[in-house]
């Protein structure tokens, strides 16, 4: 790709960006949200036209104006949000749009053979007859990869493929990537995870504000340099310092024998005021489900929950909110935000009642005032409180979700993957926010699949496996090896 430029109203998304990908290499593309990674890849995939610049495949200039054209050129995309039909099985998804047939009839045997051939080649074992909706995220991702390969893709773009995977699943993914590379497939690997780059990438390109800042061989590009190139300034410490929990701090949240089989099987723990407890574990271990059962998103079968020493009965989310529990969900778009509503409407959604005047009408001026306060305090980058949340970047959307929960009087904050898929700068701001919440006496539970984050941001680490807490580490004791061992059942 040479000299690619693209403008959106008010934003120059890409400015003269050039990129080279060789056959059989993995090129990592990193950059903060809004740096232009997604736009660049959408142009390559034919989902958006470029304003300027040209694209060459195998040395000859090509026109990619539709996704179909990209596919014919052997360019395959694996988006963060998968494009699978949930009701179809693996085979049907892999051959979708390309079904082998006899006349008007589908040739199911040929379809199966073709799908298994690709899967065997990749060394993937999958249940073939099960609805895709019932497979794990990792398995669905493998179907995506197989689907792209069955169309003979020679260039594969993966957008944050490891974001939803556990450590072990990520290892599997890297095995598959190694096989692809050996076959001569060129891979563009978009990621926010510094620590995996040296493992997976041959070269690394950093994008910032629509410019390709720097490209280096991965071995010669240490994480500090990458981060400096991404943010344009040096971030001193990756994680801010945790203030110690005051001796004798009261218990903010106490959970005993919480159960909601099959995902949650008898969970007991306490969080003190000012304490951050990290929940680590593999995907599917039941961490999210524990938070859902505490907050009222799901109704627990049995168990006791005390907030600030008071027994609470949480049967629906509004009960949890009334009890002072804020649940910041993992999936912003499907659970945290109403994308078609404004920043103001999203921030006040859980507490609109506080803005209703005596005339029973919502006081918009008061709402705007509160919204502006959070826009300033959390540094939400939005042109105005009336901007639709849809138009904000991921990090800023996450800040809107946080503002929604800061608006109330919650004493307990349950964070589910608070920094997934957001840029380094926003991450640091969210860490600082968690710390200031803890300073003010809140009790915090943080579920995260990012091990450094768990180790860096928790006073205590609970490892979840099979819907129960299997190990607990104090801050000093938690090492990556020990936590992974407990999570995988190796210890």
């Amino acid at each position: 790709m040479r000299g690619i430029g693209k403008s959106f109203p008010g934003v120059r998304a890409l400015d003269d960006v050039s990129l080279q990908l060789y056959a059989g290499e993995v090129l990592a593309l990193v950059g903060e949200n809004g740096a232009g990674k997604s736009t660049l890849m959408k142009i390559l995939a034919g989902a958006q036209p470029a304003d300027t610049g040209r694209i060459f495949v195998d040395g000859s200039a090509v026109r990619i104006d539709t996704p179909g054209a990209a596919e014919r050129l052997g360019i395959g995309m694996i988006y963060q949000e998968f494009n699978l039909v949930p009701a179809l099985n693996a085979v049907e998804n892999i051959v979708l749009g390309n079904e082998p047939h006899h006349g008007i009839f589908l040739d199911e045997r040929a379809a199966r053979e073709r799908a298994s051939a690709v899967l065997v080649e990749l060394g993937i074992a999958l249940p073939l007859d099960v609805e895709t909706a019932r497979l794990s995220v990792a398995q669905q991702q493998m179907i995506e990869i197989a689907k792209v390969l069955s169309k003979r893709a020679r260039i594969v773009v993966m957008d944050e493929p490891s974001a939803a995977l556990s450590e072990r699943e990520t290892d599997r993914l890297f095995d598959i990537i190694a096989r692809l590379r050996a076959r001569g497939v060129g891979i563009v690997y978009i990621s926010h995870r510094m620590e995996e780059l040296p493992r997976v990438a041959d070269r690394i390109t950093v994008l910032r504000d629509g410019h390709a800042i720097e490209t280096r061989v991965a071995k010669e590009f240490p994480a500090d340099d990458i981060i400096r190139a991404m943010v344009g300034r040096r971030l001193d410490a990756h994680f801010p310092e945790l203030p110690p929990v005051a001796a004798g701090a009261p218990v903010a949240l106490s959970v005993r024998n919480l159960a909601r089989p099959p995902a949650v099987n008898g969970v007991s723990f306490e969080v003190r005021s000012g304490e951050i407890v990290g929940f680590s574990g593999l995907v599917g271990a039941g961490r999210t489900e524990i938070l859902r059962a505490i907050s009222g998103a799901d109704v627990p079968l049995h168990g006791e929950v005390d907030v600030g020493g008071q027994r609470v009965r949480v049967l629906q989310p509004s009960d949890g909110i009334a009890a002072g529990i804020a649940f910041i969900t993992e999936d912003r778009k499907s659970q945290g935000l109403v994308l078609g509503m404004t920043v103001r409407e999203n921030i006040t959604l859980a507490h609109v009642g506080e803005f209703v005047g005596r005339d029973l009408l919502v006081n918009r001026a008061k709402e705007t005032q509160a919204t502006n306060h959070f826009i300033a305090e959390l540094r939400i980058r939005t042109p105005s409180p009336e901007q639709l949340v849809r138009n904000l970047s991921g990090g800023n959307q996450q800040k809107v979700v946080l503002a929604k929960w800061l608006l109330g009087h919650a004493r307990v904050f349950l964070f589910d993957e608070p920094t997934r898929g957001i840029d380094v700068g926003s991450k640091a701001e969210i860490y600082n926010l968690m710390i200031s919440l803890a300073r003010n006496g809140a009790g915090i539970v943080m579920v995260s699949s990012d091990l450094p984050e768990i180790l860096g941001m928790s006073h205590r680490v609970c490892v979840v496996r099979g819907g129960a807490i299997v190990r607990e580490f104090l801050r000093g004791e938690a090492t990556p090896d020990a936590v992974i061992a407990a999570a995988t059942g190796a210890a």
Partner: protein
Amino acid sequence: MADEQIQEPLEASARQERSKRLRAYWLRVIGALVGLVVVAVVINVFAKGTFLAWGNIVQVLRQISYNCIMGVGQTFVIITAGIDLSIGSLVSLTGVVMALFANAMHFGGLPLVVATLAVGIAVGALAGYVNALPVVRLNLPPFITTLAMMMIAVGLSYKISHGRPIPLQSGAFQGIGIGAFLGGLTRAMHVHDIPNPVIWMIVIVAVGSILLTKTRFGRYVFALGGNEEAARLAGVNVRRIKTLVYVISGVCAGIVGFLYMALFSSGSPQTGTGDEMLEAIAAVVVGGTSLMGGRGSIVGTFFGALLIGMLYNVMNLLNVESYTQKIVLGAVILLAVVLDETRKRYLAKT
């Protein structure tokens, strides 16, 4: 944190954004009005001056009032990404029930009118509640549950009326259906009468619009239409809000049933079982409310109903026969929605 420094320009930009939106809104309204006036003048020439006669305009408003009131209730339902197919048959059911009730009472005058209206509203609300039950409890699609209610309500109204219109014995309703609002005043001022249903429509559009845009309930309606799970996790009582929108729709149907009953001086099982329901939905969609939920307005529904009403009226004045009228109406509804979508895509690009 330098709150004040950031706050100031933020508030300014919020004001700017709002005034920009407001300007875009008024541009649209004024554009639509100018367009309407131009078209109206042209049509008026063709119709030899009958179209823009005050009497004709009032006539169009009266004709659209029934569908428009149904459309108001329907707008709430559609913004939650639902649909209510039962409203037409609820008009006939409430009409029949009210007529039977009024004839069974031994008092008359205003108390009878108020009591009868209350019965109609109660029946409509109850039917709306029943509509919502399987939707909120079992997550069934409202298309099916309200389709079932449509059939049940039609059957019920034929059964309890034995298939015949039930004439009202009391004369108390006459003024409401065909009478004029403050008729003495309008006649003293030598202007044309404003029929009562038009006043009902104006009041219901105004109340509905305030309810939808200015209250907590309205906010929740949009939120749950835009993202039900996010709304639920934010503590919105999704079941209650969903139930309420179907109840509102049923109440609107009850009011229309009342107005029709008063107009015809009888409760008939045939009223409202024609194209009324479909035209009310058409008015909502032509008015810019998204069938996918999360977006829409009641003022838009009013203009949608007005457009459809004017079309009928024009075609009548130009002596277009009724079969052709339907074809034209269908084409215009499609065109209106296509134009609106094109405009939105254009705006999204620039």
